[in-house]
């Protein structure tokens, strides 16, 4: 099912996302079986990792250490971590990530209240259950997502080997442009890595050979011009459920205005 050939399918998915929001239901669906359509299948797909940052409301910040200890204890009791402690920032990166179901690690992060670092993951029901459980434990102790919190998604690009062409395609794709959101973001990262491997040179750049720079989507949405999104969704996924999920994320995404200076550092 192609969005570009069936724009009514996109309109329907978009309308359903807004309807779920109006009903107070989770806007982005959460899948637990074959959620990535093989992109992250054990043994043949891309391995990935996810960092989940959380913060605390002002009223709870004086108790941050105690709350983090309680979260660490609950994570351990749930079989998600190997110890009931909070580790220094970057412990996983510096010392190596744990493997296995209990390989999550709670790390300190000075910019927010704390950060959960996942073990290397594949698309299994256990993975999605773990992410759901992690979020529920954080929320149960008052942890919240705020504009300050984020979460890196790591996708194993060892399939790119030492070939600049794949990274160049990935960069070209990237530059163009609570459970369910996390899962869909992971799938978006996985799909983009897969696309860099799959597309041919003659298919670049997408979007009618026009650069789709950051900030464009704000203007596109004002004009109800979804063409670049429809093309991307069609390239990323072939399953209707994946496109519908991505469209739900699209529906609730607040697009940034164009920035005058694209550089991150002065």
């Amino acid at each position: 099912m192609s969005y570009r050939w069936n724009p009514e399918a996109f309109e329907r998915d978009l309308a359903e996302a807004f309807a779920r929001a109006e009903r107070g239901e989770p806007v982005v669906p959460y899948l637990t079986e074959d959620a990535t359509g093989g992109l992250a299948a054990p043994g043949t797909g891309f391995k990935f990792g996810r960092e989940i940052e959380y913060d605390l409301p002002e009223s709870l910040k004086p108790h941050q250490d105690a709350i983090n200890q309680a979260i660490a204890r609950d994570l351990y009791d749930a079989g998600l971590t190997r110890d009931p402690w909070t580790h220094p920032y970057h412990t996983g990166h510096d010392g190596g990530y744990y493997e296995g179901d209990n390989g999550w690690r709670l790390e300190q992060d000075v910019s927010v209240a704390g950060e959960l670092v996942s073990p290397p993951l594949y698309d299994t029901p256990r993975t999605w259950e773990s992410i759901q459980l992690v979020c529920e434990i954080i929320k149960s102790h008052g942890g919240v997502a705020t504009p300050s919190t984020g979460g890196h998604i790591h996708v194993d690009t060892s399939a790119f080997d030492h070939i600049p062409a794949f990274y160049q395609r990935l960069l070209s794709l990237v530059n163009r442009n609570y459970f369910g959101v996390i899962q869909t973001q992971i799938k978006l990262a996985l799909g983009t890595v897969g696309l860099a491997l799959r597309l041919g040179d003659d298919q670049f750049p997408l979007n009618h050979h026009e650069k789709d720079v950051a900030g464009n989507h704000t203007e596109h949405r004002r004009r109800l011009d979804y063409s670049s999104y429809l093309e991307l969704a069609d390239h990323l996924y072939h399953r209707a459920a994946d496109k519908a999920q991505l469209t739900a994320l699209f529906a609730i995404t607040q697009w940034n205005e164009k920035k005058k200076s694209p550089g991150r550092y002065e």
Partner: protein
Amino acid sequence: MSEANRAAVVIRNTSAADRPPAMPVKVDGSLYRYEMIFSGGGSRAYADEPDELVGALRPGYDALGTPEERREARARIALDAQVRAQAELAAAGPLEECTPEERAVLLGGRHVPPAPEEWAAPVPLVLVTSFYEPAGSLPRPRGPEELQVWLDPADDWTLLTSLHAAGTIKVAILQDSP
């Protein structure tokens, strides 16, 4: 701190829209000699010695026992950085102005070091010094200097400064450092 557990202090970087993060200090309250921004701008490392910064780039580097092992680890850092830096330069363009032969050199696998006799394409070529004269056996490509980006893993400091020059990391020295 003993020689065995010397390691850079790594903190998360803030975005350009925010204030820079507070710089960590040593036990005596003084600042570290070096600051390095890495991981695509996502992290900052602070240390007094270059090898500690290299250890932040390649966890486990400080535990390597022999100079040969360290040399090999630095070469791997350079090779990984070469692929990513080359991809970024190619993505920035103008790749469309390159010939098919030049595109093949830019985007081809780095399992074998690229060895064009001359490089004058509009996209710079990233090279690792280990494979070219005088450190290696390949002749250096002729052509404008500004179209060749060299990564030099000969020692810790040359690696860091060459990665800095290539734009992969940023290294700064404390201004009033001895």
